[in-house]
């Protein structure tokens, strides 16, 4: 492998990792703070892509589509929390998996009813559709650099918000001791609705960022969900910086595994990596609770 090719593949790996981070951030937020396994995260990701594609097509504005998609998935998330999922915080993880798996089926079918079975068109605005020359012989798609930037900004904002702000303090307080947090005046109910809505919005954001490079179709959330779960578990459940490190690691391992190893080995190398890391650190790279 020549040096330019090696650099390009490294960039590809980091970029794939950041995309995985966008998908995992909301999952690990909800999982870590509310102790809820939300398999419907993939369905919210799908809705984000569909809504953004529809609005962008009708209004001819990618930014408007993105805005509507993020707000809409946040609203759907809040509604889900209030109407259904808050009843499951104290139930077993198996119950949570069952109800959110049911939600996947419902969302998939509803999406097919509304948008049909044919995959959607989701075009990029011309300003980010092409590729730019990073160094001689390497044209890199502009939109992938945008994903890279958005992912890093989202990671930074989340970290600052949770670790450095009052809202973040409420969130951490509600997560570690709900009764005590209520007693000192934190409206835990509202905080949890907010966290779940934020998690859903992050799923929607991941979906709309992935939409222009992937197929926007029913069921697009499931393969992504599996990768996001791998990243969440390796990073340490609930840890935002853990998710970022794990996602970039998985992105690099997957990219070089596919290029250098045989196809059978290449497609399972991330799961091998997960097994090795969990044998070494059973709670993930950055465990949140002890």
């Amino acid at each position: 492998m020549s040096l330019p090719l090696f650099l390009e593949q490294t960039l590809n790996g980091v970029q794939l990792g950041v995309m995985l981070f966008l998908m995992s951030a909301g999952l690990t937020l909800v999982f870590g703070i509310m102790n809820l396994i939300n398999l419907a995260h993939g369905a919210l990701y799908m809705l984000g892509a569909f809504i953004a594609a529809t609005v962008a097509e009708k209004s001819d504005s990618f930014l408007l589509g993105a805005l509507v998609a993020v707000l809409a998935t946040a609203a759907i998330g809040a509604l889900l929390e209030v109407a259904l999922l808050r009843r499951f915080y104290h139930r077993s993880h198996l119950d949570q998996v069952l109800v959110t798996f049911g939600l996947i089926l419902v969302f998939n079918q509803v999406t097919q009813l509304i948008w049909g079975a044919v995959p959607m068109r989701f075009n990029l605005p011309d300003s980010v559709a092409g590729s730019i020359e990073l160094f001689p012989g390497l044209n890199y798609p502009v939109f992938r650099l945008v994903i890279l930037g958005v992912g890093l900004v989202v990671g930074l904002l989340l970290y600052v918000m949770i670790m450095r702000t009052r809202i973040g303090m409420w969130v951490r307080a509600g997560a570690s001791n709900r009764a005590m947090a209520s007693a000192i005046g934190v409206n835990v109910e509202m905080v949890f609705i907010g966290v779940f809505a934020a998690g859903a919005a992050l799923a929607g954001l991941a979906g709309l960022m992935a939409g222009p490079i992937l197929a926007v179709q029913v069921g697009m959330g499931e393969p992504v969900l599996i990768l996001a779960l791998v990243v969440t578990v390796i990073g340490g459940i609930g840890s935002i910086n853990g998710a970022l490190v794990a996602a970039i690691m998985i992105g690099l391992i997957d990219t070089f595994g596919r290029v250098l190893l045989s196809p059978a080995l290449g497609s399972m190398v991330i799961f091998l990596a997960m097994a090795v890391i969990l044998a070494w650190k059973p709670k993930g790279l950055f465990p949140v609770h002890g």
Partner: protein
Amino acid sequence: MRRLLLAATMAAGISVSANAADAPIKIGFISTFSGPGGVLGQELLDGFNLGLESTGGTLGGRKVEVIQADDQAKPDVGRQLADKMVESDHVQILTGVNFSNVMLAIAKPALDAGVFVISPNAGQSQQAGKMCHPHYFSTSFQNDVPAEAIGMYMTHKGIKRVYLLAPNYPAGKDSLAGFKMGFKGEVVGEVYTGFTQLDYAAEIAQIRAAKPDAVYFFYPGGLGINFVKQYAQAGMKTEVPLFGPSFSFDQTVLPAMGDAALGAYASAFWNEHYDNAASKKFVTDFEAKYHRLPAPYAAQAYDTARMIDAALKSIGGKIEDKAAFQKALETVKFDSVRGKFRFNTNHYPIQDYYLTEAVKDDKGRVVMNMKELIAADLADPYVQDCHMPAATN
């Protein structure tokens, strides 16, 4: 008393067979209606229903009852549905199946139970060769042939160095094997990717470094959308042209690919701009009814319904006479959307293959435009392994 009972039984038997001629023909339509493959089942069913409509809702003059079910793209689910349809619904024909692995699970038990199996899409090699069966027919293609056709075209055009990609599963390997039968140049890279892989940036970088003259890929459905969009975004489309089989570039994926597909080439035995009366009527009727352009899946299913109708008409609708129905199918004459249609001795079609190119039509939609004939009367290579038993009841 016993004699009376016997007479009564015989009378009942006679009345049953008298009713049979008026009874509706029962067709089991098993296909994939949910998940990412759900679009294929919908195309097939829409095409089949339109075919039935064009024959006045009857097949060979008899009423039809279509029982449809969703195999969820899973062979085990397909097998359970087929068993139920054969044993409790007593279907006479099973059709609709789109995935080869589902068909492999369904075909043998259904055929053993005496049911006709007519594949509108699944084109596995087994039933084309050693496992060919008097009551099994395919109205689509054998999986290897579209790939072989585009390989022949690229050889003919003097393309020397080709890079190959396919998902790591049986149909992917069949497709690349078929391609290599038709292509005589050098294969500079042959990559099998994971079946749920989303990102192809790494593979595209390898292609760029290998500097081939062309890329041939087999990525059905969403995989193809991912690959083609990312290939175009990487600026590769203008550097190295893309070639694929027709189902990598049809109306189930072209709307989502959009401009990223323009300039790509495929091999096809039918496309939405095929110039003959039957095809034009089909496309017009399909657009009027479903408000979208049909994919080849719909065309194949449309042909399936009309072929069954033509075969049954020639024997007065008597599907119960299995030997007669088999012979009628083997020699069937009908107005196919492909212009001409005939079965090989293994009951797979012998048909012409054309080169098509992704272009924009006058309404701004991305469509496949017919370019030139690649090969006339192309048959699959498995036919030599098929020793078709004589027709029996």
